[in-house]
């Protein structure tokens, strides 16, 4: 089973990626798929801005606009941001804790393929009768009235990809709890690992409500259920609660890993240990905890009553406290450090004021009385783009530059990286800052056009110009990626020169077994500690021995295809007689491959000591 150190054909590489259970390769798959959906969602954003550039525009019709708007939000959250974050978690977290792989390599692969086929399913709606058009929140009163199959694509696609995310969350939790290297105590874990841990816990508890909500919607739309139908005793508010019990933690699921990436960037490029490490951990856990008690602030105007509104309002404002702790810790990390203004560091520095602005408008929106004014206006649009783009997307772009060498062994071009950064930063603020004022002037969100003379013309045009800046920035980034791959200039294990944590102590990209010998961790920032004592590498915690590795498997792909097929059957069963048989065939594929998996023994294989020794002399693995 030694599959390494050989040149392989395209087919073999493809097969390798289809069956891989290696967390580093799965990270690359997440990066490619998430990156693709990011471009799709970005294209949809451009269509939105083009449509709104001038009053009375007819670039797209109102119906198509609704579809574009829904798919922009859904794609960006579920199919771009989440998988891209999973890409970094997969690529970096096991290395940071000194593990050879994740706890469940097979499930890791299954998680990816479920997400992928869910995403493909959702996007196929464009070609099969129209995309979902009830907004990414898909409120029941809208989505039950929506004709065609758009909403069904939303429900089934998210159900499949949501299952993948839940699996991923459990996998990361078990990995962090059970597989830390000797000496890696909880309070020595890098902050990115900590945020991965808390995020995974949030996934574990937030995705089941989404699963249930999607099932209820599925039953109502396709199987004659009455959950949300008031005529039959149902209640449409139930969807809103379920969606936001999931939806609000989801915001923290996205932003906490972003905080983790920034914490790494600040420490590395200030060449100082992270200020207030333990308070950072505390703040992360506290944000995760509070994240479950604030969902109804999305529903202030549904009429929950003054008591409920007041409770959720205060709880929401409380979240500003741990977030504030974090902001100050980052500032103090930089204070007195010898700062290097690399591309990742630029994103991190730009993140602080940008995210703080989003946080401040968040506190404004948290006040229930004020929220009645802001609700469903462009002010809200500006707010959440400041936190999600200013927090998450900046982190993803910064993290991409930071971890690219670790994932691929080459460096992205710094000059082009900085061009991307400046274009993106300027474009972002140009697009969204002015939307605060559009909102305050009364422009409602999700509107497909506006009239001349309402006073929205200039601001909307400015906003559209900003969007083009961001589009150009993305194109520059793509050019950068292509150029870097073409040049293929290899770098060493610690290309930034100031790596602090374990991932920088091993080659880039790491050998498939990660650590030949598990490292001994002697404190926070273990690699930095060794460097300060003049050591070139980590002290091993074990002698060289056989390494146990899992076998590749094609089963995750097949399971996901099975669900993909079953979803088509479920969707069309009311109007086509082949619906139910297709549903059954799909589920048979799913359960059949699960059965195959459980019946077939899979003990993995061992890399022998001698081969590991040979690697040393023979060079690259």
């Amino acid at each position, binding site marked *: 089973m030694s599959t390494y150190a050989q040149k392989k054909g395209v087919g073999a590489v493809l097969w390798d990626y289809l069956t891989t259970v290696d967390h580093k390769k799965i990270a690359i798959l997440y990066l490619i798929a998430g990156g693709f959906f990011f471009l799709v969602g970005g294209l949809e954003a451009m269509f939105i801005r083009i449509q709104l550039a001038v009053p009375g525009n007819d670039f797209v019709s109102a119906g198509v606009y609704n579809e574009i708007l829904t798919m922009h939000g859904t794609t960006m959250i579920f199919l771009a941001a989440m998988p891209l974050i999973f890409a970094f978690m997969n690529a970096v977290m096991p290395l940071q804790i000194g593990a050879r792989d994740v706890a469940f390599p097979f499930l890791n692969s299954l998680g990816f393929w479920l997400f992928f086929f869910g995403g493909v399913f959702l996007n196929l709606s464009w070609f099969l009768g129209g995309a979902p058009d009830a907004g990414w929140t898909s409120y029941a009163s809208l989505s039950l009235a929506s004709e065609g199959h758009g909403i069904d694509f939303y429900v089934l696609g998210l159900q499949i990809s949501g299952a993948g995310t839940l699996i991923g969350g459990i996998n990361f939790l078990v990995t962090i709890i059970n597989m830390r290297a000797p000496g890696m105590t909880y309070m020595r874990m890098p902050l990115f690992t900590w945020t991965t841990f808390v995020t995974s*816990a949030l996934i*574990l508890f937030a995705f089941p409500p989404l699963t249930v909500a999607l099932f209820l919607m599925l039953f109502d739309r396709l199987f004659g259920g009455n959950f949300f139908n008031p005529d039959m005793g149902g209640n449409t508010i*139930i969807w809103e*609660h379920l969606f936001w019990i999931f939806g609000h933690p989801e915001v923290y699921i996205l932003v906490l890993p972003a905080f983790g990436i920034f914490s790494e960037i600040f420490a590395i490029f200030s060449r100082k240990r992270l200020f207030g490490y333990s308070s950072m951990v505390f703040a992360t856990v506290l944000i995760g905890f509070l994240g*479950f*008690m604030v969902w*109804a602030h999305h529903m202030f105007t549904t009429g929950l*009553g003054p008591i*409920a509104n007041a409770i959720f309002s205060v709880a929401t404002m409380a979240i500003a406290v741990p977030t504030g702790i974090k902001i100050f810790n980052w500032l103090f990390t930089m204070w007195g450090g010898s700062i290097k203004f690399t591309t990742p560091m630029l994103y991190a520095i730009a993140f602080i004021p940008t995210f703080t602005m989003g946080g401040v408008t968040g506190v404004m929106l948290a006040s229930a009385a004020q929220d009645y004014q802001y609700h469903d206006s462009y002010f809200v649009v500006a707010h959440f783009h400041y936190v999600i783009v200013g927090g998450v997307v900046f982190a993803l772009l910064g993290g991409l530059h930071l971890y690219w060498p670790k994932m691929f062994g080459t460096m992205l071009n710094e000059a082009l990286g900085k061009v991307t950064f400046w274009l993106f930063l300027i474009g972002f603020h140009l697009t969204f800052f002015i939307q605060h004022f559009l909102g305050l002037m009364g422009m409602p969100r999700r509107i497909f056009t506006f009239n001349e003379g309402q006073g929205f013309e200039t601001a909307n045009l400015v906003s559209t110009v900003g969007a083009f800046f961001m589009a150009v920035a993305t194109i520059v980034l793509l050019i950068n990626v292509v150029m870097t791959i073409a040049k293929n200039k290899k770098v060493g294990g610690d290309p930034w020169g100031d790596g602090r944590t374990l991932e920088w102590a091993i080659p880039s990209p790491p050998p498939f077994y990660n650590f030949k010998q598990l490292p001994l961790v002697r404190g926070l920032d273990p690699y930095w500690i060794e460097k300060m004592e003049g050591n070139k590498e980590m002290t091993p915690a074990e002698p060289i021995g056989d390494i146990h590795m899992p076998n590749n498997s094609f089963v995750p792909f097949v399971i996901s295809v099975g669900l993909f097929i079953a979803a088509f059957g479920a969707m069309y069963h009311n109007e086509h007689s082949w619906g139910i048989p297709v549903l059954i065939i799909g589920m048979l594929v799913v359960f059949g491959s699960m059965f195959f998996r459980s019946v077939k023994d899979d003990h993995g294989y061992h890399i022998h000591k001698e081969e590991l020794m040979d690697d040393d002399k023979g060079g690259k693995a």
Partner: protein
Amino acid sequence: MANEELNSGNPKVDIEYRRRKSAEEMRYQVVSFAMMIFLTFVAFIAVGYDISGWFTIPFILVLAIVQVGFQLYYFMHMSHKGHEAPALFLYSGVFVAFITLLAFMTIIWW
């Protein structure tokens, strides 16, 4: 009650000890089963006799929670060592579950 770090150095003694330990544990489990059956009886009887709902509902809910405690701590071995992480996550789940239930009992209809 954890029987993981039992090492007297003598495998025969260890086996004897472990066997007695798990037999003792089995007794606990049978007792908890008897308790669970008893609690179920009480709950059904409480409902069978037409007592006011203000008493019955909280009463049978408490019985259910006690019974689930037996199930978790004896049948699912949560009283053993090495269940710290499972307990943490289970109770976090219970916390989210509680908040959800509370919300659905109070602010769904008005």
